[in-house]
């Protein structure tokens, strides 16, 4: 059966500033990840696999690459007569660009009001996970919650701004919300994925706007922790969270772990992405590849170790590439020696170059550079 009473809202620009280099020309949602994906593929596929057929993608700036990638939503089976995928760029006169989640939600009030679904599932594009959103919605209903926050338990991500942490009681109710936490050790933290009843969300937003409140986490979650029934839902599976260039690098590297891949890419809940029609990767004589993820369209004649190679990457003879993330269509010339690099799309490294970063500080080379 089609449709399931849940409306999806994806914030494609939220937290762009955490990886400023990668989002200079694109949204958080269109940042390449995992050899053939963009960050938005994960939440969008989760929605598709959970039967959500109406999704609003909230954009603010730099969204050309995102529109190009997502298109009409066909790859996610969301190009439909009923509902489907809707781009929500800023519009209207006198409207300043939103600066926060409440502003963004207020800007799409008409979309929220004209939707029919009972529940809203909201997410940003900074979490790489494979999850069943229906489970979250079922828990939301079972607990009679006003707001359900999907949380993760573990080490806090290395976020410049800190992370929102939660205290959750035995019953799953959120008792305390702490902002900008920079503690070390194991914590329970917010993943910016929320379930709210649609009408209640509209009411929350109207109320926040009238009181000139701006911050969803501070002014709604934290301030409303006793007033509202806020519950937590733990995502127990793998979740890679992008909070900095370093965490972006680690997230890509973590996909070299078979267990992580098994959790992210189960056969019955695939992660969809735009098709590129490349031929399979070609390995030449003398190629040597160890512990690496290689996408279609790559041509490998050199040595590759501990790397993620995106679609259409060329590694020429004698080149040695280690511990690096190399995005779509980049070319590594003959006899290059490369270690701890993040290469954006269409970078060309000419022959015999040596470029080194460090594990805790991978060097980023911007899109289209010639070295």
């Amino acid at each position, binding site marked *: 059966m089609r449709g399931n009473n849940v409306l999806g809202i994806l914030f494609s620009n939220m937290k762009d500033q955490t990886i400023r280099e990668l989002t200079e020309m694109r949204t958080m949602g269109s940042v390449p990840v995992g050899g053939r994906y963009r960050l938005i593929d994960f939440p969008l596929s989760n929605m598709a696999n959970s039967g959500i057929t109406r999704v609003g993608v909230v954009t603010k700036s730099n969204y050309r690459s995102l529109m190009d990638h997502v298109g009409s939503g066909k790859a996610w089976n969301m190009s439909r007569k009923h509902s489907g995928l809707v781009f929500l760029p800023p519009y209207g006169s006198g409207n300043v660009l939103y600066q926060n989640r409440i502003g963004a939600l207020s800007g799409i009030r008409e979309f929220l009001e004209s939707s029919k679904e009972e529940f809203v599932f909201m997410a940003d594009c900074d979490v790489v996970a494979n999850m069943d959103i229906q489970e979250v919605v079922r828990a939301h209903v079972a607990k009679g919650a006003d707001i359900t926050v999907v949380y993760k338990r573990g080490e806090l991500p290395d976020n410049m701004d800190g992370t929102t942490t939660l205290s959750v009681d035995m019953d799953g109710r959120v008792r305390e919300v702490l902002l900008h936490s920079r503690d070390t050790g194991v914590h329970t933290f917010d993943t910016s994925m929320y379930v709210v009843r649609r009408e209640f969300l509209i009411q929350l937003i109207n109320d926040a706007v009238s009181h000139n409140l701006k911050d969803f986490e501070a002014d709604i979650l934290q301030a409303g922790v006793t007033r509202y029934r806020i519950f937590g839902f733990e995502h127990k599976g793998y979740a890679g969270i992008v909070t900095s260039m370093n965490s972006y690098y680690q997230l890509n590297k973590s996909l070299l772990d078979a267990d992580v891949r098994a959790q992210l890419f189960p056969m019955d809940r695939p992660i969809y992405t735009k098709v590129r*029609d490349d031929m*399979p*990767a070609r390995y*030449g004589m003398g190629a040597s590849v160890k*512990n690496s*993820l290689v996408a279609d369209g790559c041509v490998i004649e050199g040595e590759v170790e501990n790397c993620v190679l995106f679609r259409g990457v060329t590694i020429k003879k004698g080149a040695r590439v280690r511990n690096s993330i190399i995005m779509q269509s980049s070319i590594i010339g003959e006899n290059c020696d490369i270690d701890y690099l993040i290469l954006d799309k269409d970078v060309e490294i000419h022959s015999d170059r040596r470029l080194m970063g460090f594990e805790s500080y991978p060097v980023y080379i911007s899109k289209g550079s010639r070295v």
Partner: protein
Amino acid sequence: MYPKQEVIAMLLAGGQGSRLGVLTKNLAKPAVPYGGKYRIIDFPLSNCTNSGIETVGVLTMYQPLELNDYIGSGRPWDLDTSRGGVHILQPYQRSSKVMDWYKGTANAIYQNINFIERYNPDYVVVLGGDHIYKMDYSKMVAFHKENKADCTIAFMEVPMEEASRFGILNTNPDYSIYEFDEKPKVPKSNKASMGIYVFTWSKLRQYLEEDELDPNSSNDFGKNVLPNMLNAGERMFAYPFEGYWKDVGTIGSLWDANMDMMNPKMQLDLSDPSWKIYTRSMEMPPHYIAAGASVQHSLISEGCNIYGDVDNCVMFGNVTVKPGAKVEYSVIMPGAVIEEGANVRYSIIAEDVVVGKNAVVGSRPEETPTSEWDIAVVGAKVKLGAGAVVKAKEMIDEDRMGVE
């Protein structure tokens, strides 16, 4: 009312491909996997799209389930348009008395005259679904128009000593055809017909209707329609094609064509952005090569997990090669699993096969008496137990227990 289409294509995809043995047991030949992520039919379909042909009728008959599903709405090939697009045409009950299968290639087109007429085409391109090649059909149509031809047949020059295996076209210097020579013992030319035809539709329609009335006809293009046209003095031309063109109708040629993919000098460039070969892709992550693996001179697709040694292989999506397994000079189709210590050489392993621990499939030609050597083939979903042996030249479609 359908918009007029100057050119439409009819793709004959109903054949069984019996020479592919177990590979086509439950699968029509055009749906047979090739080249790591493609199926044979991707080539003519992509050629149509890239040539600007917007309407393609695909005539299916033998084991059509998987093939029909695969074609679907035609979206991967950009053929899901409302102006025409791809249509699956199966034999149907024409009246309370007439219930025919497609009796021959010409009869298959005859039975779909109504489909063709909807688009009121000037030219019809007739294609087969058993070759790997890239060809711009629009150039062939232009050649057809230039010569004011009634029928144009594409040919490829083959080595003279192989010419007797083909249907040979004997032509005048202006490429007009004066004679067909089907598998001649003493060939007069080396122009082998590729089974790709362009017809002026009004002429073809007339000959199809006449052919249908002839009770002695086997309703075949090569045997009946084309000779009839030539005898009647219609303008028939041979269109020269140069480039990669490979029949994949036998186990040996299918294996060869796959091995060609690893040759850097191969003329068929599948990474050329101006003439991509489209395919319905599976949703899988990039493939993973483990620290202990060795991959040389091979083609590997997304979703594979390689922990063993792979040399001169074409690996389709989602293939697993476990640690200690060795695979060489083989074609491994989607979803197959090669367990620890297994040895697969000079073989074609079909979809979802499990090759058990330490099993041995195929052998090297240099280590096998010539009379006993050929490619070993394991049919879809077959399970080989631990230590099982499949000899060179064997073709199996039943599970086999191993001898530990």
